């Protein structure tokens, strides 16, 4: 992944997420809501997941996977709220924004490196435990 993508994509995703949240809470209407609302729900969560796992593939496959994973996350959030009888669009969007923020945060270089180091350390400890 290029440095350009590493920097621009998280900013764009956060911007879309926050804009959608603002529009939904302000009950804005019109094409801007359609554009941001659909872009956010159908692309952003999946895009963030695919970035996190460092998936490298062509744009077409990436888009297909991003939409599918986004829909899966959307359904997970919506079903949870519906079964808890706590559904509201504001709460659903807030949860999705939180999920996206967490995914983006996990992908930040210093956090990502720490997680990798922690994972590597755990593996070494486990191996030591086995050999002892």
């Amino acid at each position, binding site marked *: 992944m290029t440095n350009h993508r590493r920097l621009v994509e998280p900013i764009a995703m956060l911007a879309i997420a926050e804009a959608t949240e603002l529009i939904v809470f302000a009950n804005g209407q019109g094409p801007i809501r359609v554009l941001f609302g659909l872009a956010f729900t159908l692309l952003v969560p999946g895009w963030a997941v695919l970035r996190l796992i460092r998936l490298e*593939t062509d744009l077409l496959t990436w888009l297909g996977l991003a939409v599918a*994973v986004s829909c899966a996350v959307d359904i*997970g959030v919506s*079903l949870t709220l519906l079964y808890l009888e706590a559904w509201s669009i504001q709460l659903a969007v807030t949860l999705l924004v939180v999920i996206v923020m967490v995914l983006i945060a996990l992908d930040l270089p210093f956090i990502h490196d720490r997680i990798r180091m922690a994972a590597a350390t755990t593996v070494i400890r486990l191996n030591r435990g086995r050999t002892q």
Partner: protein
Amino acid sequence: MTLPAIARIGREPTQLPLAISGALALGVVAVAFALWSTGLNAVDLSRMNDLGLISVLPPVTVAGPLLLTISFAFHLVSGRPRTWLILLHVVSLIVMLYAIPIIVEEAPRFNVTWRHIGISDVLSRTRGIDPTIDAYFSWPGFFALSALLTEVAGREVTLDLVEWAPLAFNLLYLPALLLILRAASGDERVVWLGAWIFFVANWIGQDYYSPQAFAYFCYLLIIGVVLTSFGRDPDPIWPLPRAWFWPRDRVEEAGLGPRQRAALFAILIGLFAVVTASHQLTPFAILGVVIALVVLRRITTTGLPIVMIVIVGTWLSYMTVTYLQGHLGDMVQRIGNVDTAVAANLTDRFVGSEQHLYVLGIRTGTTVFLWGLAGVGVLRRLAAGDRDLTWPFLAAAPFALFVLQEYGGEILLRIYLFSLPFMALLASNAAIGHTFRHRRLAFAGVLFIGVVLLGGYLVSRYGNERMDLITRAELTGMERLYEIAPRGSTLVAASDQVFWRFRDYEHYRYAVVTDELLESDFSAVFERLAASPNGHAYLVLSRAQRAAFELRHGMQPGEWDSLVQGVDRLPLSRVFANEDVTIYAFTEEGG
């Protein structure tokens, strides 16, 4: 790299410069679009007969996709184009095939679509899921997504979302389909022809705004990812002979790291879980294909079917209890009842007007043609020394669903759909084998397949359009019905070809009196209305119902009018009428 990138179709030494061939292709695509759209402006839907949309499509509209087919065949076999040019042709084809109703019709087509709008509305309005309403609420995944999308984008866009769904779903199918096709063939010509065949042979029409359309997208994607990211050289279990499943080229390892493998596995599980929560049948189709891949040891994730079975079992055991309590016995009884399935899917369906029977014949012919082509493709692969029977095996796997149940007379349609990616691949092999030597022959083959399937598609796909389309007058009439009828009323229609339940879904009772009206038993119709628990009932007669009676039941012109006269004689009051809808009211006080 984890998933295969789009391989480039190579440029051969004797070719024209790319700029020239590219400009030529762009020009042809532009002309094709111009022809297609010009014709669509002249469509007069009121003149449609039982052949469906094809009866009113001007020849110039058909000339658009035809020209595109010729251009695609030329570029595919010439080896000149870049991948983006072929992609442009395929995307253009998808638009031309699936956007026709969006342009020529006044409202989202197909009555079930409107029911799905109503279910999403219930979830948004009640903020919960009540599984006692009906079966849809035991598999609410897609409707939860629909509720989210319509609310996040604004409720006024609901109809736009619904109307554009077939085009959007088919565009989404493309990347997932390419994953499957690339796992099966290293020849990009075979891959792209397979994609072309898939879209031009997808006349089933299950891509409307529905759980099955979304689940099918996941079906393609799950199989595509499994094959490309977890594929391996086959080593089928005993007694399947290894030599029958050995691919011509070794399966490339995806080169995934352990964390990427785990993450992709989790994504597969997540996608399968949402499919399970959304649709009754698709999880079993996915399971069938994945089990087939495991039996052939074609994938490394041998535990995947077990996880999938646990997910399906858990969902059925806990989340669908309300539905299963009343239906389990009936469902179990239907398993293995092949006679009923054959009757419901074949013999019972071949009824209706002469023109409708012609459409049914074209549908059967298109299916036989595609499956026959797939058979030829298998033979060509074998003749070329490719003994890998994995793909015929996968194409056959969905047929196991036939044993499960007749699925409301639609199981054959679903089997066709689930086997379509593999059939399309094998049919592609019929035109372009492993040995790509005779270019002119290949061009003729691609063109022949493309033109035959295009003709079949235009008749088959939109063959029921006379009853599937919804006019503005019908929309006005049905909206008026919900304004007139108090909650708790019973709404009655002559045919199930009526779009309703899009508002206050759970607050009305619904009944269909087709049999009573076909027997001209008007007193039975009246009794159904009088049986309404709250004393209010409304009978709706509409243009689409008349079309259904003539198309499906072979009713002659004029018979519907005498049927309406019979209804007029009942002690009902006519409370609304426009050119396409008439509403009669029964009330205990007045009835």
